[in-house]
């Protein structure tokens, strides 16, 4: 095995301590695996919408697990956070906590989840101007799209559907069902468009938010 160091063997997964999330995965290895995921799914479908749905489903499973693991990890972070409150106000409220409010879970996705998955917080989190129930997370250069160019005949297809699926997985598991889609948005003076993850919350979520006040 390449670069295999001595890894401690555990008799079963329940004995092994949960990872602290400090290790990083090689970008090329991820890009290679992701390209296979897209190509394989491409052979299984006959239209773009179906392909996006399949990528989204793959992401959903990641998101659902991310939520549970990260909320558990936050507890450990809590002590460190106390020292740097001024820089990360979002983290303060999360120590063995669940998110019960809309803005709380959105900033959790925007900062905590993004940081773990992509090593940085998302470029921006905005509220939709036309609809009350829409929020957007934008990223200039989404990690999964870095080595991907979409052929002309595939129209509006965006591999960000995978990330949209992750976001949906996190939100849905936390009790905030939403429809999440990924779109390219052209930017002036830039060759490559940025990717916007559009989140449209279900009606029940907004009703509950209103009730909680």
């Amino acid at each position: 095995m390449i670069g295999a160091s001595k890894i401690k063997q555990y008799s079963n997964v329940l004995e092994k301590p949960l990872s602290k999330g400090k290790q990083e995965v090689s970008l090329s290895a991820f890009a290679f695996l992701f390209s296979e995921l897209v190509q394989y799914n491409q052979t299984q479908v006959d239209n773009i919408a179906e392909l996006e749905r399949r990528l989204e489903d793959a992401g959903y499973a990641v998101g659902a697990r991310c939520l549970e693991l990260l909320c558990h990890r936050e507890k450990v972070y809590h002590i460190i956070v106390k020292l740097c409150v001024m820089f990360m106000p979002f983290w303060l409220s999360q120590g063995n906590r669940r998110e019960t409010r809309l803005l709380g879970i959105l900033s959790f996705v925007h900062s905590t989840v993004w940081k773990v998955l992509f090593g940085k917080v998302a470029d921006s989190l905005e509220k939709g101007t036309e609809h009350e129930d829409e929020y957007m997370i934008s990223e200039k250069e989404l990690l999964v799209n870095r080595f991907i160019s979409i052929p002309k005949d595939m129209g509006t297809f965006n591999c960000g559907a995978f990330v949209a699926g992750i976001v949906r997985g996190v939100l849905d598991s936390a009790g905030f069902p939403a429809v999440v889609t990924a779109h390219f948005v052209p930017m002036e003076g830039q060759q490559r468009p940025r990717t916007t993850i559009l989140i449209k919350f279900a009606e029940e979520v907004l009703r509950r938010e209103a009730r909680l006040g």
Partner: protein
Amino acid sequence: MATTASFIIVSRNDIPIYEAEVGSATKREDAAQLHQFVLHAALDIVQDLAWTTSAMFLKNIDRFNDLVVSVYVTAGHTRLMLLHDSRNDDGIKSFFQEVHELYIKVLLNPLYLPGARIASSHFDTKVRALARKYL
């Protein structure tokens, strides 16, 4: 160790995915059904309470005679519910936290579908050991 204790994990979709009688009392045949019934009745209360606080551990949310229900709601709204007759809050909290960690380990298995029954015998052994230690 508590004389009566019944532990159950309920998935996000309100389906029980793990059950265990962890008390030391001699088993009565109808006790298990009674415990199930009481825990099931407490689900409604949990549903209302879960949105009013962001804490995971909700203690003594419901009672039936001398039996008390304590619940631990995870981030993904999986509920760990314990029916107990002891008043050892700290022990119960530690029990929940450790089982939560075990649950995350099971959940992180890519072959485990969230919401499916936890059939692992290792998990069962570990939970029972934790119950002996803390309850």
